[in-house]
């Protein structure tokens, strides 16, 4: 079942950061990786992805370089910064707390 990006509860940023923690990627690769890793549960809307990337670049969490791509033409590759790593840690903890709280209510043992 595909979940659209707008249902991601604002965790799109965290997902992108996590993706990049495995290494630099361009926008398309980030989208594909998320789709693959979530077994197509998460369908990323491109209309949200790129603005998110640009926003995070402006905030300094990620940085970009133009490099060689699979197609042989230049692509914009993003990578995580130190600040971005810290942000990822923070958002992960936040998510864990949130999910834990919700789970305790919705899925009592």
């Amino acid at each position, binding site marked *: 079942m595909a979940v659209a990006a707008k249902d991601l509860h604002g965790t799109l940023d965290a997902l992108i950061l996590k993706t990049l923690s495995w290494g630099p990627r*361009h*926008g*398309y690769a980030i*989208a*594909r990786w998320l789709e693959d890793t979530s077994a197509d549960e998460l369908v990323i*809307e*491109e*209309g949200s992805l*790129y*603005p998110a*990337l*640009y*926003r995070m*670049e*402006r905030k300094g969490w990620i*940085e*970009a*370089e*133009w490099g060689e*791509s*699979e*197609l042989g*033409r*230049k*692509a*914009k590759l993003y990578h995580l910064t130190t600040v971005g790593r810290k942000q990822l840690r923070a958002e992960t903890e936040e998510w864990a707390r949130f999910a834990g709280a919700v789970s305790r209510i919705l899925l009592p043992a």
Partner: protein
Amino acid sequence: MPRPGTFGRQLRSLLWKASVADEVDAELAFHVEMRTREYIARGLDPELARAKAVGRFGDLKRVNDTCRRIGEGRERDMRRAEWIHEFVQDARYALRQLARMPGFTAVSALTLAIGIGATTAIFSIVNAVVLRPLPFPEPDRLVRVYSNRRGADGSSSAAAFLAWRERSHSFSQLVPAEYRNFTLVTGDRPAEQVTGERVSADFFPALGIGMRLGRPFSKDEDQPGRDNVVVLSERFWKSRFNGDSAIIGRSVRLNAVEHVVIGVVSSKADVLGADASVWVPIAFTAAERADSRKGYLDVFARLAPGVSVAQAQSEMSAIAKRLETELEDNRANGVRIASLMEVYVGSYRSRLLILLGAVGFVLLIACVNVANLLLARGAARGKEISIRAALGAGRGRVLRQLLSESVVLAGIGGVLGLIFAFWGVRALKGLAPNDVPRLDEAGLDLVTVAFALGATALSSIVFGIVPALRTARPDLQGALREGGRGSSLVARDRVRQLLVAAEVALSLMLLVGAGLLIRSGIILQRVEPGFDTAHVFSAWLALPPAQYESLESVRAAYDRIVTEVRAVPGVQSAAGVTVIPITGLSAQSNFIPEGRADDPANAISFNFRLATPGVFQTLRIPIKQGRDFDDRDVAGSPCVIIVNEAAAKTTWPNENPIGKRIPGPRDGGGGRTPCSVVGVVGDAHDDGLREAVRPQLYFASAQAPGALWFAMQRSMFILARTTGDPRAMTKQLQAAVARVDPALPMFDIRTMDERISASLATGKFNTLLLTALGGIGLLLAAVGIYGVVAYFVTQRTGEIGLRMALGATPGRVLRLVVGQGMRPVVLGIVVGVGLAGAASRLLASLVFGVGTRDPLTFLAVPAMLGLVALAASVLPARRAIRVDPTKALQS
């Protein structure tokens, strides 16, 4: 070490000038391409695949725009960060450089601090007094409406006011105020005199003055019989009633009538200049409404929306013309409307702006000095700059770095200047005359600090740009060669000389201004007041109408008071008079001398007053002809008057005034009592020493009718000439008055000497300030000249040594060096005299007794400036003589 990303971006921006828009397009196009391939791989038709890929973006154009916006924002952020980073670098470098030359930095910073501090202090005052709008809503719509008779503004009658209100469409509100004295009694405290105002119920709302406590008058209360209410001023409420919040509902006795306190008005009301402690409803009686002759109303108004002052003026002039025939007496003729701001600060605006201009000159001189110093330093740094340029620093970078030195230097000067300004404002507030409105609100507020920042920034550009441009353009080869003497040195000298000339010119202008004011002050001091000011006690009394209803009681009271005062030991002579010299509070009226047609053209305006016998003796005003009032001149005997020489010359030129008659005050029967002149006295200044003496007319207080006493509010000044210090006799004199009426306090107790000093205070203050500024300017200019000559000596040591080796005498060398120093000074003096001659016209309103092109000042000031400059040149020149020729030649 720059981060990899930044380096890459910088490199990229150098190599590949792609715009953000292009990059976004490329990135999104790439994604679409990849997606399309993915769909094709899954078996979709290529066109469908592409369409699906694009479709996944939703509105591709909008996404593109969003990303582009964010991307451009990011670029801006980075550029700003870079700019700040570079500036911080420059600033740190500049600080290090400045620290390395502490002498130069100290002198420059101090010079700038003086200039910026003085300018900021003066601006703070100009802002508080002149520039800020009045504290009322829409203050530019507020005006004063005067009855104007033959060019003189005066107060208005109730009939005229009511007619205006009824007929005029130019105002959304028209409100009256009348000054009134009250004797206030509360509880069992002794009676005191307070000033008050009678105002209409809509007065406070019309002007937008809010209440601190309680409420203003209602329309009901603004009627006779229902008007026993009073509003206190905030100041009076705090000082007299300790700000007691339970004051509302309490009763006080004003002029022996109970009034209930219904409110306290905010201190904004004080702006109207009335100094009132209590406010009561004006409550026009029927008699007042019909009265078009007597009028003491100050009329304020708020212009209707869209109406200009000019439009209101023309409408009111037309109305006034019609009223001329409709109402009795010409009181209503002529109306003048003036904006409230103009009335309030008008006279101060020009004075303060002149001061601001003068202090601006001082700042300019300070900047020129620092520029000179920077040029000197710049010459010495020629080598350092050349090396940097040789190493690849672009001229722009070097220039920017030098400018940041100027900015940092200005910053240090500015901070110090703010501290100076703080103390300066305090000092000025203390020294300034008392009558400057809103002066106590001056201080280092936001606007003033912003001004200081602006002045600092502007100064840094003014003094920094020329030296930076010159220093950043070194003659590479010449400077790196040993000795460093290139053609640029000569050019630099010329610039420095021009700067010195400019300093001298500015300084001269300041000093000419100060000189004119000093001369005015001296001449003013010598003006004969027309009476002997020493040892004269003066105090003001007002008899409360409730206790002193009848004319006889008023006359008797003052008669007894003067008698009692005369009896006090130590009093040589005493008298009562309703107007005393210098205070400027004279009543005026027009009289037509007997024998001339009853035509307004024949009416002569006199400053009139009521006097007991003995006034001229007490003040030592000489009686030129005839006699003083005496016991013969009482009620019932023929009406007599005394005039001053100015009146005699104006009214009866070339004739003997004694015996001439003027129809005096109305006698209640419709006619006017003819009064004969029995004496002519010397001229004594009514309005301070600057104004010419106007025609004056004295009525005998024992003969004056009730109407005149009512007009004077039953008040009189009591004068006493004492053998010793008049102030020391205050208690005895108060006791003398108390023997007549213990509840009658004295008001405005001062000696005549003190009144004269007070009237001269403003002029003295102006002179003091301008002289101080001139002095600072002169000092700075002298320092600048000294610096230039000293620098010249240092630079030309070799040449001097050569000349001396070739046989030049010390005298010749001295003349050479001093000549160098004085050349720009002479130029500056010539230019300065020319400019001062043109600009001194601005001081026309401030000078007295001298023309604005006064030859004495215009000779003395350049001479003095020349002498100071000579001294400033000779001092360093003496160093030149001591040059050892052999050592100089070797360097």
